């Protein structure tokens, strides 16, 4: 494999070579922990920057561009502001729990990164029960939220905390069911194994993979309390939900936990369904050639633009042909595409009411997840043409049936009289 792909692996190997043989495993662990704890806040800070810029652009405005060029230093100034802000604890609050809650919510968010395969053999801890670890750690977050809501002794926080616990628990079930199909097909719980199983065909390009991926992604958004499922911190009703009474660095910790978990959800969706660090089946240089043809044929574009476009694409094709794009770039590229979708949802949708939210989880995603396992079975058992067709049919019929049975607020179109 090319050197660029294994860049970080060789780098860590070279660093570890300085340690004596006995201490090498400990140094390895310390190095990995150090890297993760350094990367996590950086990822979080620049996620806030990405979100504010993208949503701003969706609303015809610039987004932060005062601090540093294009506002790149904005997250740092936000972090500094949070440090300076006074940390108010409500008088009736239970001080210990009020302090422990944000910490307890950030720790699992960082722990999730341990089993994330960033690139070819670039995984901090290659557990063979990686998936089980992921679900165990991600469910600690609901304790922290309820602890935070309860400790701040304010009516709005309690309402927000109760809503969040109900929501997280009811969305873990469809998430797990959708991943059961992946385990069944991949045959292993280890995240590296799952990514290897998608070598020649990403799970997303199978009928059950599409449905499973959507269910997992939606449940992930709900677990992270982001629009359109952000009931627990509904600004318009509960002022700020469970973290109403937090300020200063504690509020920043809540914020970090939310963003790290949303990054983790996107990363794990990529790992389970979008082929982790695998390059797309179609070699990328053919895509570059295709782009070159399109740009060349673009009649509306000015001649110099077309010429430059074609040359650029041809150069890229030659480069990528010789030196394929490294695996970890693929992983981060796909993750950031999913993050764009996450932010896109936040920029577009209002939030669902709490009972509709629950209804969606229990009455729609859960049965669909079960049927999805059946579809995955059909797909795996029967040979190619029959299996895919059978599972696709099963899924479409069941989805339509579920919508018909649940009959969300009768959506027959409204008639409007035009009187004179």
């Amino acid at each position, binding site marked *: 494999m090319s050197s660029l792909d294994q860049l970080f692996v060789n780098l860590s190997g070279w660093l570890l070579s300085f340690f004596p043989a006995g201490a090498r495993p400990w140094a390895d662990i310390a190095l990995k922990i150090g890297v993760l704890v350094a990367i996590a806040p950086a990822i979080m800070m620049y996620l806030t920057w990405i979100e504010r810029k*993208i949503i701003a*652009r*969706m*609303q*015809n*405005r*610039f987004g932060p*561009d005062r601090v540093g060029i294009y506002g790149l230093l904005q997250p740092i100034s936000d972090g500094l502001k949070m440090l300076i802000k006074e940390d108010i604890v409500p008088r009736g609050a239970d001080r210990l729990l009020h302090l422990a809650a944000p910490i307890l919510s950030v720790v699992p968010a960082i722990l999730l990164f341990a089993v994330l395969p960033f690139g070819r053999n670039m995984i901090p801890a290659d557990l063979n029960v990686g998936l089980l670890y992921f679900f165990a750690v991600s469910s600690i977050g609901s304790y922290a939220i309820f602890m935070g809501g309860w400790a701040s002794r304010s009516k709005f926080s309690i309402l927000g905390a109760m809503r969040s616990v109900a929501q997280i628990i009811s969305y873990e079930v469809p998430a797990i069911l959708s991943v059961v199909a992946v385990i069944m097909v991949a045959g292993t719980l280890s995240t590296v194994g799952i990514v290897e199983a998608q070598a020649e065909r990403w799970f997303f390009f199978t009928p059950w993979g599409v449905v499973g991926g959507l269910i997992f992604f939606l449940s992930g958004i709900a677990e992270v309390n982001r629009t359109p499922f952000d009931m627990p911190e509904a600004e318009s009703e509960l002022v700020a939900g469970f973290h109403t009474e937090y300020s200063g660095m504690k509020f920043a910790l809540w914020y970090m936990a939310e963003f790290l978990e949303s990054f983790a959800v996107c990363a794990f969706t990529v790992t389970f369904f979008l082929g982790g660090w695998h390059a797309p089946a179609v070699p990328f240089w053919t895509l570059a050639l295709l782009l070159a043809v399109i740009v060349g044929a*673009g009649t*509306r*574009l000015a001649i110099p633009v077309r010429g430059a476009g074609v040359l650029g694409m041809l150069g890229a094709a030659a480069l990528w042909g010789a030196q394929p794009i490294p695996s970890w770039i693929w992983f981060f590229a796909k993750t950031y595409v999913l993050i764009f979708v996450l932010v*896109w*949802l936040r*920029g*577009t*949708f209002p939030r669902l009411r709490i009972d509709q939210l629950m209804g969606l989880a229990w009455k729609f995603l859960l049965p669909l997840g079960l049927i999805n396992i059946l579809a995955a079975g059909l797909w795996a058992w029967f040979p190619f043409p029959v299996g895919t067709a059978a599972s696709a049919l099963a899924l479409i019929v069941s989805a339509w049936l579920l*919508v018909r049975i649940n009959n*969300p607020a009768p*959506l*027959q*179109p409204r008639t409007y009289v035009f009187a004179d």
Partner: protein
Amino acid sequence: MAVIGSGVLRGMGVTFKTFLETYPWGRLILRTLRIPVTNGLFTIPYPETKQQHPERFRYFPFLVYDGTPDNLRCVACKICEQECPPQCIHIVMEKDEQGRPVKAHGRTLPKQFDIDMSICMSCRICVDVCPFDAIEMDNEYELSASDRYEHMIFDKHKLLKSADYFQKIKPTEAATVDARLAAKKPKA
């Protein structure tokens, strides 16, 4: 009945189109796909580029003088003080010791003319009722002050501005005012 998800997806299409519209390359893509580009970036970075206000934009009033500051048009007739809805104008006429009004340039003049800018709501009624066109509306809006009482009460000297300043900021309005004054000139 449309497919259950279509409304949601169309909504996302609108926001994505707006996202693309704000970038030049985005507009390029939209134009090649023949999607009409309606409006791109709408906000302006304030201190660098300032918004162009139309001529009639009014903020706080100012007193007009022709030529030198002591030749102001105001004759301290107090009609504006009477008509001002929030009563934020205070005028004291210039008098000598015996209490007789002092005349300058053939007109009486105000010794003291204060407008409390923290109460004035720039409603332009003083300009409407002034028979001598002595007071006009300014369009200077960067007036933040640290203290409400000393800085926000504009006295006569702070209010006085020349007629050609008025000509510069509001040409058409100044033209009608000058025409009216010229028509009155031969009579006076």
